[in-house]
């Protein structure tokens, strides 16, 4: 695939165009990446495809090799892997809080102690999510303004 980068005038709108013979998985992967960078993720629910703003997502969870996006009321499945999402969502204030979960720090209402040195994040939606002890230092680091 030939990559063209064209510098345009300020008056013209910026755009990305992919010219391909066929929409393959590789092309879809590029599209997903661009959408994620623009603050959107593609999720599937009941066979329908939706564009979900990243800011609406409370947490991302991997269950049995499938990855789900949880908003306050809805659950969507995504094709992307958890580690890929961890990479791209880091700058959108998502942090890994357990082996199988990424949490949107902007959706947390409070943090409470849980048993055995763990913590529990109380989300704005009222849901309670356990933060593993292993990931607490990364959380502290990020809240202090560091990049994890």
């Amino acid at each position: 695939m030939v990559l063209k980068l064209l510098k345009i005038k300020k008056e013209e709108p910026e755009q990305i165009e992919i010219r391909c013979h066929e929409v393959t998985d590789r092309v879809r992967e590029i599209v997903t990446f661009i959408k994620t960078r623009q603050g959107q993720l593609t999720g599937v629910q009941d066979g329908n495809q939706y564009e979900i703003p990243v800011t609406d997502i409370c947490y991302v969870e991997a269950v049995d090799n499938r990855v789900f996006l949880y908003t306050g009321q809805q659950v969507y499945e995504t094709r992307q892997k958890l580690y890929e999402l961890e990479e791209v969502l880091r700058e959108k204030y998502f942090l890994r809080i357990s082996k199988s979960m990424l949490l949107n720090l902007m959706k947390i209402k409070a943090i409470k102690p849980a048993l055995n040195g763990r913590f529990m994040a109380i989300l704005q939606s009222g849901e309670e999510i356990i933060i593993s002890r292993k990931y607490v230092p990364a959380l502290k680091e990020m809240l202090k303004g560091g990049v994890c």
Partner: protein
Amino acid sequence: MHGKEFLMDTLRTFFAISTLSTIAILVLGLMFVPGQPIGQGYEAFATPLIFGLVGSVPNLVMYSKRELSVKELLIRKVVQLILVEVLVLYTAFGDAKDMWDDYTLIAAVAVSIFLIYLIVTAISWCQNYLEAKRLTEDLMKFQNR
């Protein structure tokens, strides 16, 4: 440092000093005043340390490579308490059959063990509570910056 935080810090220091003082008295006593009659010598200072060690071994029950659920943790906590009771009682009374017949004594020691377990758990919970409070404060600043 907030009031509660200061109190927890002081308590931690108190327990560390108590343990280390006991070790120091035991070692120095055995070095400089050896040969005391059994039960009246400095080896008696080893007793709290032995109980501390015996009471810490059941902590292994809480170890897990995977993340435990709240229910699993609660079950393990109960198992840990039972093990602490059994091990400490056995260490305290061992083969002394006449002691085991004194139910009031056994019950009093068992209740003491339970209370100590509760206090240790409460101290640990308070530490976590303070840390959670700090994290929430940092989180609020993070969200509003």
